[in-house]
């Protein structure tokens, strides 16, 4: 439709619309002349005009809320993980509850986000990023944000945040109760608020909605503790939907009463905007009222844009000059005229910023000179602060010398492998196991010790204990724990050092000396001593990982300890060695539950790798023995969980994982495996939430990023997957697993060249099945079929039981023009997958694979029969839908194929896969194909 034609139609329509029907014909004849199309268009409009009736005569009703209250009842469960215990109050964004985190056995605050409008994918991503950002701020005066969750129930979803539960009242409530706060008491609060803002600003996080309602107070007087809540998360909770309307992009977020002038004007926010809001909060604290009071929020905001505030000293004459001046400077309309940092606010409040406190009562004509002086001294202070900062960066050891001998406030620790004085390799394994378990045990303290961060063992285990300066930079730590083990006759002696990571100077040291007979206590004693050196508290029960009475046979314990050292390498040879050692341990002490448990775990791992039922049986057998002796060992339940997962018994697996997690709540691996199991069972959100939890709890462990990235990959959220996996490769550049996974994502995104490069790196580090397989895939999609076949062959040699490799090999041969070899490969794939199906007869993925192989072999009937079974058990993830489409196409059902593929795309499946899949070359020539590709996006 052109505007001109539209105007023409309108003109004629308007001329006849109000005429009686009998008169219309004549007018139409006259106005349309011989333009038949024009006449037709107008007649159609007239007919609609006649039918319209009350159409659009009333504005749409505003969707009314449900009659029932939306409040959650105590006892109700969210996402199967949180149980509401108490309603705490409602805030701007929704209600706040106290809740139990059933998964981790903690109390949390749970904030339901009431969001009008749809939360689109882009917005949810933004929420996630914000939460991630907010998590960066760890400070005693900042409420910690844990996670973003979503609860689904029939007909109603809700989104919620979990955060640190703080028992106190808000500053707003306190002010309502007490009117105002004396400036002595207010200073105690103010300083903490400034610390909180400063910590956040240093981490690059703005609050954006700082106000009295977002400050929690615990206690009162000078002993008060103030905690700032909702850091950085306020902005997306405000009505800012992801539509393209211009208006929405400039809309300010925040609470109008506390918005800075620039925020009201829709300009970008900076730290200075938070400083402005801080000024308003300080004002309210000492005067009991906000400046710019007016009879409506709009009028109040308008005043803020146009008028200077009433000096607080007018309302509170006893207020000191420092306070009056500081508040007014925070409330400067020009962001550049406010304090440059929250730290400066503290200095100004205390009067330590300038040589003398400003004597002008408030900035006005007479104070210009003084303000300038003040600014100069602030600049001087800035330089001083910058120097201090540099000194701090040079190493806390310097500071320790000058001031008191203290450890840094934030303890970033790496435990390096201990050295062993001696040649016996079995003692080498003991030594390795000792450092490993120390590292893991310290990491378990992280959830309760916010100042502690432990570099993951996977990064430190290959570091040497000398030449340490560069280790500090590489690991991002400021403290190192090193140790040496000596075996002196019948005694074990461990010398542990806590060192400055940069200077390698020893800060503290401890010697643990135990007789061989008490060898079993070594691990616990070491943990106790090192925790003492680090000044961190060991929670009650922490030391029960290794009950001292576990075994009375010292030799048995040594075998066990060495076995752990090998087992945690998780590769074929080392696990084999570990099994041997655990067996020796139980030979020495047939009642050694922990050794049985680990034996079960090692076998479960072997079963997972080989799918050979022999190992499954041994895993179960040993788990049974362990349980009979002691049912509370995490390893036993982990082993049983893994067996359950690999045999398709999801319920049992989930149960066992949860049991293991309760026994050892901080074990990343258990958390991740449980998540994957949830995902298999179609409980996607639960899985996602757990995986994110693992990242949250241990943000420096690449394994967690690897899992979460793989999860997103599986759910076709490639951009997110790429981001996470890149993070994983940066954390563990020498580990092939994240490199291979990243290459998988790049392949799905159609970035074949990038993928090849990454894979080159991966294979250099270590040739693996995944590496070769992905490389073959990259070449395959660049039509280098012969190369690809070679790579798949290599992959198959490393993993002879994998049906998917045989299938890829078959595809490569088929396209390289070798149909006989292709058929061989497909037939092998059928056999391989049938073996797996014997273990998991209802696994939709396996069934679908089998159907696909049949289809490729031309056995259409078999293919269709098996596919029907697969569909019955499926949760229909995008991959499944896509493959269903492929099978339909291969078995000659084009219509169904098109429908499934369209659906797969709509679920987020990779378009490049669709456009490149060789099985679909004929389908892509179908005239309906463009429709499914360019169909409506939502």
């Amino acid at each position: 439709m052109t505007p001109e034609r539209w105007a023409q139609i309108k003109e004629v329509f308007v001329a006849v619309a109000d005429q009686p029907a009998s008169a219309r014909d004549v007018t139409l004849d006259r106005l349309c002349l011989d333009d038949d199309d024009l006449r037709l268009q107008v007649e159609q409009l007239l007919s609609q005009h006649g039918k319209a009736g009350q159409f659009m005569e009333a504005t749409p009703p505003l969707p009314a809320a449900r009659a029932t209250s939306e409040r959650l009842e105590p006892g109700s469960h969210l996402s199967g993980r949180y149980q509401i215990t108490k309603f705490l109050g409602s805030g701007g964004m929704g209600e706040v509850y106290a809740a139990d985190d059933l998964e981790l056995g903690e109390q949390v605050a749970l904030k339901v986000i009431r969001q009008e409008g749809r939360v689109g994918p882009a917005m949810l991503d933004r929420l996630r990023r914000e939460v991630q950002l907010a998590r960066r701020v760890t400070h005693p005066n900042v409420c910690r944000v844990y996670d973003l969750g979503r609860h689904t129930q029939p007909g109603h979803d809700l989104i919620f945040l979990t955060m640190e539960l703080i028992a106190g009242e808000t500053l707003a409530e306190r002010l309502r109760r007490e009117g105002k706060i004396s400036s002595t008491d207010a200073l105690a609060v103010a300083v903490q608020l400034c610390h909180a803002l400063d910590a956040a600003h240093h981490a690059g996080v703005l609050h954006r909605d700082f106000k009295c309602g977002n400050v929690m107070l615990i206690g009162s007087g000078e002993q008060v503790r103030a905690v700032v809540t909702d850091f950085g998360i306020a902005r997306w909770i405000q009505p800012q939907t992801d539509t393209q309307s211009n208006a929405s992009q400039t809309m300010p977020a925040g609470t109008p009463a506390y918005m800075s002038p620039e925020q009201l004007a829709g300009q970008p926010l900076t730290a200075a905007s938070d400083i402005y809001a801080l000024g308003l909060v300080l004002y309210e604290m000492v005067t009991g009222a906000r400046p710019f009071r007016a009879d409506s929020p709009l009028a109040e905001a308008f005043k803020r844009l146009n008028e200077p505030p009433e000096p607080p000293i007018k309302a509170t004459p006893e207020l000191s000059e420092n306070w009056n001046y500081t508040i007014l400077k925070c409330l400067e309309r020009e962001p550049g005229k406010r304090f440059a940092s929250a730290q400066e606010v503290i200095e100004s409040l205390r009067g330590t910023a300038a040589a003398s406190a400003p004597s002008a009562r408030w900035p006005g004509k007479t104070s210009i000179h003084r303000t300038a002086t003040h600014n100069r001294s602030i600049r001087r202070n800035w330089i001083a602060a910058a120097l201090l900062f540099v000194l701090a960066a040079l190493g806390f050891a310097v500071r320790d010398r000058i001031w008191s001998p203290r450890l840094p406030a934030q303890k970033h620790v790496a435990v390096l492998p201990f050295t062993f004085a001696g040649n016996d390799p079995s003692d080498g394994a003991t030594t390795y196991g000792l450092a490993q378990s120390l590292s893991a045990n310290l990491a378990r303290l992280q959830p309760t010790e916010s100042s502690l961060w432990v570099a993951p063992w996977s990064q430190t285990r290959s570091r040497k204990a000398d030449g340490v300066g560069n280790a500090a930079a590489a690991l991002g730590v400021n403290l190192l724990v090193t140790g040496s083990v000596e075996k002196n006759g019948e005694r074990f002696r461990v010398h542990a050092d806590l060192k400055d990571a940069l200077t390698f100077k020893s800060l503290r040291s401890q010697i643990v000396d135990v007789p061989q007979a008490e060898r079993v206590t070594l691990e616990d004693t070491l943990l106790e001593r090192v925790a003492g050196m680090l000044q961190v508290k060991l929670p009650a029960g922490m030391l029960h990982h290794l009950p001292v009475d576990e075994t009375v046979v010292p030799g048995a314990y040594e075998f066990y300890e060495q076995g752990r050292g090998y087992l945690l390498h998780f590769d074929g040879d080392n696990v084999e060695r570990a099994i041997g050692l655990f067996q020796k341990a139980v030979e020495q002490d047939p009642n050694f539950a922990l050794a049985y448990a680990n034996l079960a775990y090692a076998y479960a791992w072997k079963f997972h790798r080989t799918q050979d039922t022999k190992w499954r049986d041994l895993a179960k057998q040993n788990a049974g023995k362990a349980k009979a002796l002691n049912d509370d060992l995490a390893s036993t339940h982990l082993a049983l969980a893994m067996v359950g997962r690999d045999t398709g018994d999801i319920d049992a697996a989930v149960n066992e994982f949860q049991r293991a997690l309760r026994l050892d709540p901080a074990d990343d691996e258990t958390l991740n495996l449980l998540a994957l199991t949830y995902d298999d069972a179609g409980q996607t959100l639960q899985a996602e939430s757990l995986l994110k939890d693992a990242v949250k709890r241990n943000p420096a462990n690449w394994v967690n990023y690897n899992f979460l990235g793989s999860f997103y990959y599986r759910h076709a959220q490639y951009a997110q997957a790429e981001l996470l996996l890149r993070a994983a490769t940066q954390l563990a550049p020498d580990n092939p697993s994240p490199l291979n996974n990243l290459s998988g994502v790049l392949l799905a995104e159609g970035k074949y060249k990038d993928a090849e490069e990454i894979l080159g790196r991966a294979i250099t580090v270590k040739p693996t099945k995944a590496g070769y397989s992905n490389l073959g895939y990259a070449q395959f999609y660049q039509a280098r079929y012969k190369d690809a076949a070679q790579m798949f062959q290599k992959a198959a040699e490393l993993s002879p039981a994998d049906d998917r490799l045989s299938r890829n090999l078959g595809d490569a041969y088929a396209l390289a023009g070798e149909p006989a070899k292709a058929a061989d490969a497909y037939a092998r794939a059928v056999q391989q997958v049938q073996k797996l199906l014997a273990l998991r007869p209802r696994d939709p993925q396996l069934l679908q694979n089998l159907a696909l192989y049949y289809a490729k072999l031309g056995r259409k009937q078999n293919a269709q029969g098996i596919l029907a079974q697969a569909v019955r058990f499926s949760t229909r993830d995008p991959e499944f839908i896509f493959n269903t489409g492929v099978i339909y196409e291969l078995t000659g059902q084009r219509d169904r194929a098109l429908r499934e593929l369209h659906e797969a795309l709509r679920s987020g499946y990779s378009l490049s896969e669709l456009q490149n899949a060789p099985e679909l070359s004929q389908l892509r020539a179908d005239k309906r194909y463009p429709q499914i590709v360019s169909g409506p996006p939502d």
Partner: protein
Amino acid sequence: MSDKNEETQHRSNPVTSLLAELRQGNKEAEAKLIPLVYQELHRLARHYMRGEREGHTLQTSALVNEAYLRLAGEHNVDWKNRAHFFGMSAQIMRRILVDHARTRDAKKRGGPMQKVSLESAFVYSDNESWQVVAIHEALNKLAEWDARQCRIVELRFFCGLDVEETAEAMAISPTTVKREFQHAKAWLHGELSKTAGD
């Protein structure tokens, strides 16, 4: 802001003066007003939709009216200002309504991997939500060749302005508003029956 106006503006209600400036074609006044109006509308909408007034169905126009009264003050009865205020609110209301309807719609369609749709606690009849979205989408088309007519529909339908108010807000004659709306209605009715028949 010119000097001679300053004094009077400070004395009267800021919204009133901003609206007056807006009527004189001052775009800056609009820039100042929009964020405030947006906040207030959303706040009110949320308030209603969250069920703080239970079982109450509210017409859009009533909501905008309440926002106006709250911001501009109850004593302010200048209907011309009101029209301009409503004119500004129309697009915002359209978005609020369409977003809700969409949410509803997305849920209805179902299908796997509804990863990120969130249904708010609103009860729309299916017919209403469908209609709101369909009209919104048809208007997007219409805007390509007749932006003025599109704006008229927005004011009349999404914001509930009557013919005179619409005319005032757009500075055109009431007769034009009436004709344009009549025409738009006929066309939209046709568009919607096409969609429904698909």
